[in-house]
């Protein structure tokens, strides 16, 4: 039995320690918001946050994250309240939606690091996450909107 901390809960898994985190989340814990697309860390659909940093779960063995805090899209916020999710809804970013968990987690990690990202910052970070539907222009807009929302929330606090 291997124990993982996922979205604030300790979960037990009876899987080979070499199993990629992606498949442990999806098939072991039924957290299917994290997506499989390339399996070689090229597309970012499988991104999750490990101790707050984006990690390709498709190439991360579960044995390597046993002591880490893992956040998936399901655990990003209650009721889609994260500023990035709010901005994504406002700007109507998703089309097919398959890559969006990865996009949203990558964007949230970017804003943690750079609360006011420039276009160049956005491109440099978000180029790691592929979208075949071409939601890129809206992702740019939504990240800027999320930065505003997060900034406003900080002021209220």
């Amino acid at each position, binding site marked *: 039995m291997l124990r993982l901390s996922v979205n604030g809960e300790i979960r037990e898994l009876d*899987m*080979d320690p070499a*199993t*990629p985190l992606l*498949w442990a989340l*999806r*098939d*072991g814990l*039924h*957290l*299917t*918001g*994290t*997506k*499989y*697309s*390339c*399996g*070689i860390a*090229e*597309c970012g*659909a499988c991104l999750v946050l490990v101790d707050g940093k984006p990690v390709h779960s498709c190439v991360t063995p579960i044995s390597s994250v046993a002591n880490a805090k893992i956040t*998936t*899209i*399901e655990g*990003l916020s209650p009721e*889609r309240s994260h500023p990035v*999710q709010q901005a*994504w*809804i406002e700007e*109507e*970013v*998703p*089309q*097919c*939606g*398959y*890559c*969006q*968990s990865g996009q*949203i987690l990558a964007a949230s990690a970017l804003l943690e690091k750079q609360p006011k990202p420039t276009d160049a910052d*956005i*491109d*440099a970070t*978000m*180029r790691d*996450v*592929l*979208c*075949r*539907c*071409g*939601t*890129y*222009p*809206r*992702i*740019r807009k939504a990240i800027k909107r999320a930065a505003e929302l997060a900034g406003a929330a900080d002021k209220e606090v």
Partner: protein
Amino acid sequence: MPSYKLTRRDFIKISAAAGGGLLVGFPFTGLSKDAMNTGGDSFKPNAWITIGSDDQVTLQVASSEMGQGILTGIAMILAEELDADWSKVKAEFAPADKAFYNPMFRRQGTGGSTAVRAFWNPLRTAGAVAREMLVQAAANQWEVDPADCHTEKGLVMHDESGRTLSYGALTQAASKLAVPEAVLLKDVDDFVLLGKSMPRLDTPIKVDGSAIFGMDVQLDGLLSASVARCPTIGGTVKSFDAEAALAVPGVKAVKQISSGVAVIAAHYWAAKQGRDALQIEWDAGPNKGLDSSAITAEFSKAVESDGVVERNDGDVESSLKGAAKTLEAIYSVPYQAHACMEPMNATADVRSDGCDLYLPTQNQTRSQTAAMQLTGLPLEKVRVHTTYLGGGFGRRGDDDFVKDAVECSRAVGKPVKVIWSREDDILYDKFRPATYNRLRGGVDAEGRIVAWEHRITGASIMKQKQRGLVPGARDWSNTEGAKNIPYAIPNLFVSFAMVNPGIPVGFWRSVGSSQNAYITECFFDELAVLAGKDPLQARLELMDDHPRHAGVLKLAAEQAGYGKKLPEGRAQGIAVAESFGSFVAQVAEVSLERSRVRVHRVTCAVDCGMIVNPNTIHAQMESAIAYGLTATLKSEITIRNGRTQQRNFDDFKLLRIDEMPQVDVHILPSSESPGGIGEPGVPPIAPAVVNAVFALTGKPVRSIPIRLAG
């Protein structure tokens, strides 16, 4: 005012649904032959609208949602004529049933940018019928004339007395009424929802990971499978040794199925490990030794033959002889992969009493039929549950992944989800056909284009789908976008010579127009330059009979500042295409960074007739431009020794955000019938970009993706 005459027998059944709801069924009689000819009576009645006594309006959507926003679009069409309260509207994917056939296809499926075009009138009618019955029910209760009542946001109101009743309060009474023989549809000016940017219904569940794609289906006792296929396309299994695979913990079974050897396990990772441990001897089959270069050589021979002549106006040969200047060019495009972000997958639960399919499919009828044929079950015992699709682009109209799941489930007697790896998805795609084109053109002494000859060779999608096509037959899909160019050229010849090298091909977002718009619009620019004319001016001069093409061209040019001075090192290219009933022009502004093309900005003008949801139109233009730019700038599929040479996103590279241009979309208002919107933005992007590169370098680019000498 538009109206659609209904007869009473058009309605198979109207009855109280469970919970006292009003259920209105409506076959497409008069719009499609299917509902009557295929004996719809033997099936349960179709049903688009269910209104609950709690005012909840549940709408069935027969189109698959693959990103194009159709779930919302169809719901808007139904809700408009129903005068539903949009906040109480829920849209669901319809089960596979003849009642839900796409009137343009005679099957249930999504493709060809048909959904709005096909369902516009039938579903407005379905909504209006329901509304009229609710009004009648209220009028009866109040003992007033229905003509003195009106509806608004899920309420019937009596104008004089101010009394109101909600739809939910009327379901019982309305269920007992006769179906009206005819209904009046709203005047366009009275639309409340249509033409407005309504938020997509599926946005919230796509930002929190809760949308269920095919990949995400979960069932009790569900197993996962991975299938090893012959590395050579079309090859078969000679023999295999499953011992090592079966030794992998979690692996439950190894079964040979039509497409290869399936490893079925408790979860996907075990299935994948088991598959990697398989020992298989393959029979490489007929494609062994097939290379892209050999395919091109075969095409280049065939292009000399006429094939099937699709258009032959005037006399091209003599006009070329008499022309002041002539030009000949070879244009080619490679195979292209669909590369949906969600790899192909399907879940099947085959039992002796029936079969349930959980599918990210664009083709419910074909999936249902395939399962029926494989299991021997009657069609109605095959139930299709459509999930969200992580991209489609035509790929998910096929049934290869569905058959895998049905065969695996049948083999082990348990529900099985078959997951194609990314490598499987690219290696064994049904590619956009490669084509090879010879063009000749002539201009006269006054600079008029007087001759145009376009000979196309390539594989036929329709031939592969074996819809009765023989070699040498016509295939509309290879010549669309070529035979219908909008230019008044007196001598015009277009032919298609079918060559089928054995590489699987399929519909790829915008199909023939995806390559033919590139080829024709770029050759047009070459001729315009030969004639000493500005490309936009040369187009407009020949477009008197095509005002909608001209309309979008002018709008795009104006919005892009076409012809104005640009920053040093930049150039613009323009292109226009009609496809799927819509007209799109784009202006691309590019520069070169060494040998790399950078697209800075794309200005897009679209005329798609009457509009459902403007925000969706913007999104689909942005999407089509991104999709087309991958094929224009980045990736291609090549074949060596019968094998696909690309296998994942490291060698089939998709456009990334830092390569995405600024996109400005402008909608040309129109009262024409609605056109398609999922595909028409793709065709103009390649030629707009290539024409800009041509303007910048003076050298034509006659194959894409663009590879400039460094």
